[in-house]
């Protein structure tokens, strides 16, 4: 199969998953009713309201968060030239978690909206810090240095969060659930600016794809071909912070997608970034959407944190793919 056909079929699968995600939940909503809810909504029908409010916002959120995380992961792996890099390595998850815990203990925040913004600020602060340290003392960003600086900053922030959590044990349960990753209780209106940020980030990443291929050929070759490698690296870092920051702010730490989906796409589709990045966006969205749908119904009436679900169901596939070898195993 050519990559184009694979990409199209992934798109079809994503559409099917969307429908599934709208239909499945604590109450099953039949397909005609879903269609009716969009065509002529009836404000008195509970099913219609369910579809157009909670289910729709969850579905959209899952698509954008999954796509952002996977694309951010692919960018991160290209930026650091390290197959083990993930968006979390920019300190983004750790920074977001720390700022949520910090702000909730200082200002006693309790609304998800306030959490959302503190998480985004935290992700941004941590990401900028890592980038600055990665750039310090030397002209250009060295992959090894940014990886090590990122790991160190991430560990520092999660140590701070742990300290705050151990000292102040109230709210440990809610924050634990948030850290595990969840798509509930996020309304579309508050999430809209972050969703916009994710969309812009995705578009930017796709535009940059060709340049990534050049950069991957190596620093000297890229410079020789006339690429401004410093600028490209800066753009990549900004995109990673935008994409992963908004994803983490929307859904908490969902660690699996950013690290492993790019590898899955590289094995299954192509290592050319012009195919890889759209593939990552689609597969990331599919994985998160399926995991979220499953997490709603697995142990009714409770919900499994979606981050747990992605890892539990995605990892076996990933292990199979990693075993299959191929050009880069």
């Amino acid at each position, binding site marked *: 199969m050519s990559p184009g056909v694979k990409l199209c079929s992934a798109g079809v699968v994503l559409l099917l998953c969307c429908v599934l995600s709208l239909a499945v939940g604590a109450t099953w909503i039949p397909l005609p009713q879903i269609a009716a809810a969009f065509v002529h909504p009836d404000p008195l029908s509970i099913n219609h309201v369910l579809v157009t409010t909670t289910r729709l916002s969850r579905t959209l959120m899952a698509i954008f968060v999954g796509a952002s995380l996977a694309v951010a992961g692919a960018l991160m792996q290209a930026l650091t030239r390290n*197959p*083990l890099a993930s968006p979390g390595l920019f300190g983004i998850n750790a920074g977001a978690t720390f700022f949520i815990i910090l702000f909730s203990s200082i200002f006693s925040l309790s609304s998800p909206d306030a959490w959302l913004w503190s998480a985004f600020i935290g992700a941004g602060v941590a990401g900028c810090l890592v980038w600055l340290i990665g750039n310090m003392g030397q002209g250009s960003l060295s992959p090894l240095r940014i990886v090590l600086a990122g790991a160190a900053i991430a560990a520092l922030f999660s*140590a701070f969060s742990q300290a705050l959590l151990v000292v102040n044990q109230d709210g440990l349960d809610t924050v634990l659930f948030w850290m*595990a990753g969840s798509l509930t209780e996020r309304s579309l209106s508050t999430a809209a600016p972050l969703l916009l940020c994710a969309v812009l980030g995705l578009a930017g990443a796709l535009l940059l794809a060709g340049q990534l291929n050049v950069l991957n050929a190596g620093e000297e070759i890229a410079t020789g071909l006339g690429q401004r490698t410093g600028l490209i690296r800066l753009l990549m870092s900004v995109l990673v912070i935008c994409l992963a920051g908004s994803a983490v702010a929307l859904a908490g730490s969902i660690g*699996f997608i950013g690290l492993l989906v790019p590898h899955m796409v590289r094995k299954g589709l192509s290592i050319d970034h012009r195919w890889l990045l759209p593939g990552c966006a689609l597969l990331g969205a599919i994985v998160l959407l399926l995991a979220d749908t499953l997490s709603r119904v697995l142990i009714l009436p409770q919900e499994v944190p979606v981050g*747990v679900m992605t890892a539990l169901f995605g990892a076996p596939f990933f292990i199979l793919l*990693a075993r299959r070898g191929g050009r880069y195993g």
Partner: protein
Amino acid sequence: MDKVVTWRRGGYSRRVNLSTWLRLAAALVLTVLVMLGSLSLGKVILSPLEVIRILFSSQDASLTLIVEQLRFPRIVLAALVGAALSVSGLILQSIIRNPLASPDLLGITSGASAAAVLYLSFLSATLGQQFLPLAAMLGAALATLAIYLLAWKQGTSPLRLVLIGVGVSAMLTAATTFILVFSPLTTTLSAYVWLTGSVYGASWPEPLALASWLLGICPLLVLLARQVMVQQLDDNLAQGIGVRVQWLRAGLLLVSVALAGAAIAWGGAIAFVGLIAPHIAKRLVAPGFAGQAVMAALIGANLVMLADLVGRTLFLPLDLPAGIFVAVLGTPFFLYLLIKQRH
């Protein structure tokens, strides 16, 4: 900057890197000082001279109890845990050929954590706490065995090993979170403290057990030490110079699991030591496994001892887990080294 002296005696000759030896000696002195400082600080503050007097001749029963039974075993346990994790991390970084490799990333820690959390939630009520180290160690061993078997396909490659390690680790972490979220709050809290890593309430049998285990591994480590650097080469190249790559990799993996598994079993899942101590060591001494391993062990021991010291003294009467402060203490120094280095 490195001054190398060649030392000959009859047929035996050896190149000795003076600055490495000097720095190792300095780290050793530092370790002793940190140990002495830890022994003297706490709720009851003693002077280092007093501590030495108490250690060698016990007159005051209560002070002897504090120093010899409460503080000393805990400090020794912290040092051993730190040293074992760091050496394990150093070995993993060279066999995986990736600076990000560490027991945490590779599924060793997450296997131990999953087993420990399972034990705390379901078995500790009937069996008590004494089998927790055994459960954690078993978890680490099983997780690594699973990773190795899954990565085996006419031999293992570093990339496959680490990718499958990350996959298995993601699953195990998810399982751990799952259990934590749905278990009662008391279990969650005790599991959370364990996951952070704490040497709280250690008594002599624990460090002695860990020390004898580590001593048991040492001969294997010495035997393999000369080969570790070869693992950093490409597989074909290593094979070309006559190394049995697969056997060596399996052996080194076994050693690093034995080291890290035991450390985690007795000290809890102290993160970050296994990643950062090897990097600090690599920036302080000349390349060569033996020197780096000793340096990493000393750095790791100091890090965990200091972290535990901060955890138990700075927030009195609270006694916070050592795992929290490892990153707080280690990161600034590491970042300083990272920024200072130019090449």
